């Protein structure tokens, strides 16, 4: 559901209605509640209901997932964890040789990622060259 439609959901909805409004399966919503990503229903038991805030939170989780964040990371953030710079984004690690590993931030733009991959590829090729190759002696 687009973010602009959020206001259309009235308070006091059942889990099934919250699921339909968010497009997230009910089982997944219960899983989020158990993980602390989402608060429980407003009332317990027979009268359990969900509000607009629940829907907003679900939309936020979806948006963060679309950015490549994991639930563990999102839960950390939403629980008021440390600011973003200490809750890092996904990182890719390229193990080039037994003794060389390059870490690359995973949420950079596609063009930047392409550029980095090309550079890592060049580094890997360079390190694969034998010690006495002319390229290495020339320092190219």
């Amino acid at each position: 559901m687009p973010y602009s439609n959020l206001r259309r959901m009235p308070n006091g909805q059942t889990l099934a209605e919250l699921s339909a409004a968010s497009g997230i399966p009910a089982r997944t919503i219960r899983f989020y509640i158990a993980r602390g990503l989402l608060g429980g229903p407003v009332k317990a038991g027979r009268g359990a209901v969900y509000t607009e805030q629940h829907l907003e939170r679900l939309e936020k989780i979806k948006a963060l997932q679309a950015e490549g964040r994991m639930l563990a990371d999102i839960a950390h953030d939403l629980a008021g964890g440390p600011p973003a710079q200490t809750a890092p984004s996904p990182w890719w690690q390229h193990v080039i040789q037994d003794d060389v590993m390059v870490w690359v931030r995973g949420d950079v733009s596609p063009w930047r990622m392409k550029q980095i991959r090309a550079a890592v590829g060049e580094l890997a090729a360079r390190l694969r060259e034998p010690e006495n190759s002319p390229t290495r002696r020339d320092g190219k």
Partner: protein
Amino acid sequence: MSPAEKIASFAPLSAATGKPVNLAMQHLWLAGHILPAGARLVVEHVFRSGEEKPLEVIYCFPLPRDAALRSFRITGDGFEAHSELKPTADAVKSYEEGIARGALSTLARQYGDGLINLTVGNIRPKETVTVHLEILCGVELRDDGFRFRFPFTLAPAYHPRAKTALTAPGEGEMELPSSEFGDIILPRFREDPSALHQVGFDLSVVSQLELDETGSPSHAVRVRPEGNCSVRVALAPEKDVPNRDLVLDSRFKSVASQVLAGRTQDGHGHFAAIVPSSAFGGSTEAPRRVVILLDRSGSMAGDPLMQARKAIDACLGALAETDSFGLVAFGNDAQTFQPALVSGTRELRDRAHQFLMQVQAAGGTQLANGFLAAAKLLAGDGGDILILTDGQVSGTEQILAEARSTGVRLHCLGIGSASQDRFLALLARETGGVSRFVTPRERVDLSAVDLFASVGRPIASELKAGPNIQPEPPSFVFGGTPVLLFGEGGEATDDRIELSWNGGRLSLPVVCNDSGIGETVWLLQGSRLITDWESRYPSTQALASLEKRKESRVAARLLALSQTYGLASREMSLVAVVTRAGDRPGELPETRVVPVGMPQDTHFGAYFAAPPTAMFATAMFARTMAKPLDSARPAADVEEPMSVESAMMPRMSLAKKMHEAFRRRPSGGTTHEILIDLASRMDADGGMPGDTPESRAGATIVALLAFLSQGHTPTGGAFRSHVKRLVSFLQSVTGLSSRRQQLVAAAIELVRKGNAPPGDWIALARTPGPHWTEVEAAVLP
């Protein structure tokens, strides 16, 4: 034993406090029958709530090869209910409505890659609930026996868009892309499985042929014979932990066709036939075109890569100059030995050895990149690819679609303690190849040599069967691997199975002599067909949204198969809702996901490593799955498990086999290592190296007798290709003295009889010299 008694005897205790650990799932118990055509199993899951509020427990597990869920029964204090098979959307709706009503609800749903979520909701506080889940699955067949494999855990697997996180010390989690895997919920992976649920098993193995031996390379087992054709196999210790597959090997006393047939309740006859490869004739000597594809991803580091290198050297030793080979190593990218296939000359094999020595384990498992590079070497002119991999990948439908598009046969040797058996079996079968799967604690090199012996030279091609057989038989038959057929028939006394192939035909009678077997083989046929179709979402649909996929032809076929056979698939799921007095509608159960143990030979840090502390301030972080770290496999410390390399070794008792295989000889190396070394040193003409024709002939006889003394003949044992080539070399030898020519003829005659003369030929083969004196004393009467 009742579930309550099992809990009492199996309940894990906290190491710190000695108090019982509060687990949502306490126990998993496997029972049932294993036949050469497949297994019919009941997996008992005991869930127990130690909470003060209702629970919803999710257990995730992978299906074994060729498997489908049939039904479940849920039992507890004062109730018992049976599952219904419904289209997945309806099953989910029933489940959710049951949960909303406060009823005990259970859903078994299949996702991509054969992953299952078993969800049990509204387990009341302090309540114990048992789910008895019936599963049909296949086995890995060999001419002289079969291997059964059942997953007790789940391996984290490489997917370019998966993400992993370290959530606590020794605990990691993984997320797969929802666009491909829907709302699947994966478990957390525990480095230390000791505080997790307990597993156990008690199974019967039943065959039509007399059983020679049954054992397990994965678990300590008790084996109790129940007649000549049946044994009962149970876990020997009181309990075990969920950190590896159960692997059982059974071997027949003889090699022959088997037809298991019986009637179902509707009176129709159904059969499963196992036809050994030997029934199709012998292999040809046509030149081979083979590419060996080596997985050098991080998880292969250590012993597996070292063994794989040796194995490839030994495999190449079986090639003649008229054969062509290629070599590709893949991780994130593919490294190729030569840009085209090369001849199997000594010089090029030596260069291939140098190439292998510089291959290092690192990076992910971009399997498709690997086989596409290997297929390029074959240049559309036909041939075979042998893959050595741990196969720890997900998103397998896409890989399978790419594999089919290459048009070459893929043969797979899988290595792992947690199952990727389903995927690798499919990868081989869907491309016309064969597969084997070994545990990391077995010898990879010997299995590779055994598989390589049959690769590239099909025994039969263009295999055809009557219309009563489904699925269609494989196009090719390879040495050592039988053909498994399912079909209808046996109602009339003269019903037969008719098979024909390029150059031969075969007819087998079908006799329905056991009513119980009919239903089982019918269900095994269904589970096999469903598995095949599950893998056939075209590549675009494999990556399409779930809604789009449901509209596909594959989805329609799966729905029809599920309805026909009464088996679950991705399109149909199992659900049960139990309404009881005291249900509290609207109450929200607390969700618990059952954690699993990391596969025992996979290093936790390979998937859930923390970054260098200097770079990160927090303990929790996430990273993509693109590049798993190297896995440092522990040194082999095999304890109780016994059966190793059963198919590749001569017929002798398992205890003797173990002793022989791992006995470190005074001349250095175990028997197998020495044989692998001999195989690697063979020249392209099939003889052993030497300075003169006489010394070469002498060394070749000694090598031949070394293989023969361990049961390897031209038609049997892992080194059968090598033995054949050694014999072929000796047959071509001329110009020796008449006495030595006589010794050569006597040695060839010994091979024909299959008996090595007394003597430590293994030790002699390791000692320099032609050894004519020892040969003369031994081979002439």
